[in-house]
């Protein structure tokens, strides 16, 4: 079996048993990326030299009997995570020239555990998009169908894992940016509880919603990586000081008696019927493992998309103010005065979707509109969070579709932001309420993957991972490889 087909867990065993070295593995994957990525455009930067140097160090450490839990194992970072000495673009012309002087906490923790970083993946500009088409570096193609989008904003990470460029990638999820691309590429994507993983060094889109997570092919791999990434960080005031359980150890426990909530609105007319069927089949598998289902009501869930599109733009309009061309990033030439400098640096440095959200956000925070939009949205957000809280009094997880359709064609929705925004209709609620969510491959519609979405209560990552792992023990959707990338 080729190395690229192995999961992180399998690779760890292979390294341990001396079947191959980290350098062998790294070289193999770098060669595959070099050869095949031009078809997908999943990478913005491939860090060959750094990766090989890290692999060499890992091999030395292993032979000396040292090395962390991820020693010598390959990972890929979304280009939203600051990596010292490496370009960190966030998918934007604004940061095309930006080389970060420091490492994000996530990057640091994975590196400390011995991980080898292969490169940095393409993404929607500043994580604003659901199709990877807003990237300054061009869209990413879905390895299952090159005419389709892999979803977004972590589309590069999802496509890279699906195409076997690496077993695991980091992602970030503000409204579904890990889970939706995972669903569209047949991978596993987990967004942890807000505050579970440090946001330090992760370029902010909407601070109260952003959360880092991982994209892998198995829940087992996700458990391994998340265990290393998660935990309190004194550099992020919103990270939560709560012990990190051993996610891997808990995977084997049965889900017998697990109570699964089904939200009626998640199976209404907005959902592709074939996708709905696949998701229901998946829930049937969980029932066969001893889980029970009950219908739950989230009365305000229909308001989640409009609520999100007030809160997220408001925060982004402020978060992106630092990109002013003064200290770093794109700077317009020959500015005649300060205003001209600002207007052109930002006008030329940001793409259309980013500008649309900055303008929307500026509007909803303006004097005279704040109460009607921002404040109201925060109140609705509280109602949605309360709905979830009540629902979780009676269930352990809520199951449904991750996205309303399988991967759509590139260019199909790019001129229609509202339709594009509806792609995150099932995932946004978890962000608004700060809850963990996971997408697991559960079948194919028209040869395109479909994802099962599970949401848990705060800090229930272990339950989600266990549920997904048990499901993957019964199914083989996750072992399917896109035909062109076998």
């Amino acid at each position, binding site marked *: 079996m080729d190395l690229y087909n192995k999961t992180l867990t399998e690779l760890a065993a292979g390294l341990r048993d001396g079947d191959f070295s980290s350098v062998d593995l790294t070289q193999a994957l770098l060669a595959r990326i070099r050869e095949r990525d031009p078809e997908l455009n999943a990478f913005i930067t491939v860090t060959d030299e750094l990766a090989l140097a890290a692999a060499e160090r890992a091999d030395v450490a292993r032979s000396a009997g040292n090395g962390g839990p991820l020693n010598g194992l390959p990972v890929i970072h979304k280009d939203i995570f600051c990596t010292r000495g490496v370009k960190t673009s966030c998918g934007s012309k604004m940061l095309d020239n930006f080389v970060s002087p420091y490492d994000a906490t996530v990057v640091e923790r994975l590196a400390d555990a011995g991980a080898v970083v292969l490169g940095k993946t393409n993404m929607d500009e500043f994580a604003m998009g659901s199709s990877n088409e807003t990237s300054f570096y061009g869209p990413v193609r879905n390895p299952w169908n090159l005419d389709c989008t892999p979803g977004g904003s972590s589309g590069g990470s999802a496509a890279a894992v699906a195409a076997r460029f690496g077993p695991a990638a980091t992602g970030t999820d503000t409204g579904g940016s890990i889970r939706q691309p995972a669903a569209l590429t047949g991978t596993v994507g987990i967004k942890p509880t807000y505050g579970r993983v440090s946001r330090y060094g992760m370029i902010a889109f909407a601070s109260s919603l952003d959360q880092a997570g991982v994209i892998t092919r198995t829940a087992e791999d996700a458990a391994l990586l998340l265990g290393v990434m998660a935990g309190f960080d004194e550099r992020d005031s*919103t990270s939560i000081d709560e012990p990190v359980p051993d996610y891997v150890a808990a995977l084997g426990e049965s889900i017998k008696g697990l109570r699964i909530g089904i939200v009626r609105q998640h199976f209404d007319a907005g959902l592709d019927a074939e996708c709905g069927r696949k998701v229901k089949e998946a829930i049937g598998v969980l029932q066969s493992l001893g889980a029970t289902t009950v219908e739950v009501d989230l009365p305000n869930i229909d308001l989640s998309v409009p609520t999100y599109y007030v809160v997220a733009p408001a925060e982004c309009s402020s978060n992106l103010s630092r990109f002013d061309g003064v200290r770093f990033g794109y700077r317009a030439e020959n500015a005649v005065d300060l205003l001209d400098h600002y207007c052109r640096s930002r006008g030329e440095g940001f793409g259309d979707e980013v500008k649309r959200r900055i303008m929307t956000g500026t509007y909803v925070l303006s004097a005279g509109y704040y109460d009607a939009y921002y404040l109201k949205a925060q109140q609705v957000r509280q109602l949605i969070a309360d709905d979830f809280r009540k629902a979780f009094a009676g269930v352990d997880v809520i199951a449904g579709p991750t996205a309303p359709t399988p991967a759509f064609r590139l260019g199909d929705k790019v001129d229609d932001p509202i339709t594009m925004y509806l792609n995150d209709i099932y995932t946004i609620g978890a962000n608004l309420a700060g809850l963990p969510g996971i997408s697991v491959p559960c079948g194919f519609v028209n040869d395109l993957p479909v994802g099962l979405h599970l949401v848990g209560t705060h800090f229930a990552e272990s339950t989600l991972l266990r549920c997904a792992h048990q499901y993957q023990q019964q199914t083989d959707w996750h072992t399917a490889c896109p035909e062109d990338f076998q």
Partner: protein
Amino acid sequence: MNAGWEVVIGLEIHTQLATRSKIFSAAPTEYGAEPNTQACLVDLGYPGVLPVLNAEVVRMATMFGLAVNATVAPRSVFARKNYFYPDLPKGYQISQYELPIVEHGELFITDDEGNEKRIGITRAHLEEDAGKSIHEGLDRYSGIDLNRAGTPLLEIVSEPELSSAREAVAYMRKIHTIVRYLGISDGNMQEGSFRCDANVSVRRRGEEKLGTRAEIKNLNSFRFVEKAINFEIERQIELLEDGGTVVQETRLYDSDKDETRSMRSKEEANDYRYFPDPDLLPVEISADYIDAVRRQLPELPAAKEQRFVDQYGIKADDAAILTGSRSLADYFEAVVAATEAKAQLAANWVVGDLSAALNQESLDIVDSKVSAELLAGLLTRIEDNTISGKIAKQVFEAMWAGEGSADAIIEARGLKQITDSSAIEAVVDSVIAAHPEQVAEYRSGKDKLIGFFVGQVMKETQGQANPGQVNKILKAKLGG
């Protein structure tokens, strides 16, 4: 000139808190470093960085709240104030808006009629300072120094209850004294650690509605506050009396020309789009925490002033001066503790000769060349009549010059007062013998010649004879 007009002033005082590191980062706050050497990635607003609140600023704000009898909020929230400026790295300033940490305080000043007047403190909130733009000496460019970016500030907002420039200065001085007493700010105005914005309006006496106000920005000395406000009052009254209207605007005070001038009008003002900062949790303060801070509070100026009068029996005016700074008050108490001399004598010396010597060399009390112990030694010798008050001044000058303790100087210079009656009698006898004419005149009734004889005796003894004894002996002998 202002007859018929009433003046309404409110002050916003920006106090730099004396923390070692910045409010949201670990970078040092030290003043005067090379530009941009004390700004870390957080201060520079780099992509991905996050603010973490320095707990020390919460303690300091709590101390201030307790010192001005205010409510320390159990929950306060940091908000973002959004605007673009090159010295504002993130494009927003982290401040507090709807829920400040301190509210509803008060302090008392002496008003223009000499009565005690309560001034309400609306609120005090925590915020970060911006950097500094440098325009001078840079042809076609502006320089940005971000050392100051992220320095913690406590903005103290008064109610519009000050009625004159003099009251405004009195209020500002009180706040200045309090923050220095608490040790939460060095209060250094040259370095910008203590500065204020003044909101000034006027209305015809009897009018209920407040007049339109102008805000004078960034006043960094008591003198400028007084002059700027007085200029602004005159300007507004003149304008209104000529039938004009005051426009709401921000004005700058030009100390060279002693005038204020318009900086931007209300229409040009930014919409700051305040909203709660999602990167920071609300600040939650428990009653236990407040109690713990309360226990650490030093004695405050008003209480200390009263205690000085009660405990030491010194004059109220002296007590007010001596408690003007904590270090001066400490010095005074150290002197009193180290001498048997009366406290009022100590007060006279500290307020008088010592302060004059400090002023002359622009020294702070903590840098005094005469320590409290040394001064106490001098006062002891005055009290026990070893030296006269006049000789004491000489000894003080010598101590200031570094010649050692009072006793050492008295000894070395032979300044000890002559109290031995037989020694004084001998000098008196020789003076009488040397001036027969004056003796005759005195005896024929010219009493005021006694001064002449005292002078002669003092001259003979180089001022060291006890003047009271000299007088007594002379009178006895001349009276014959």
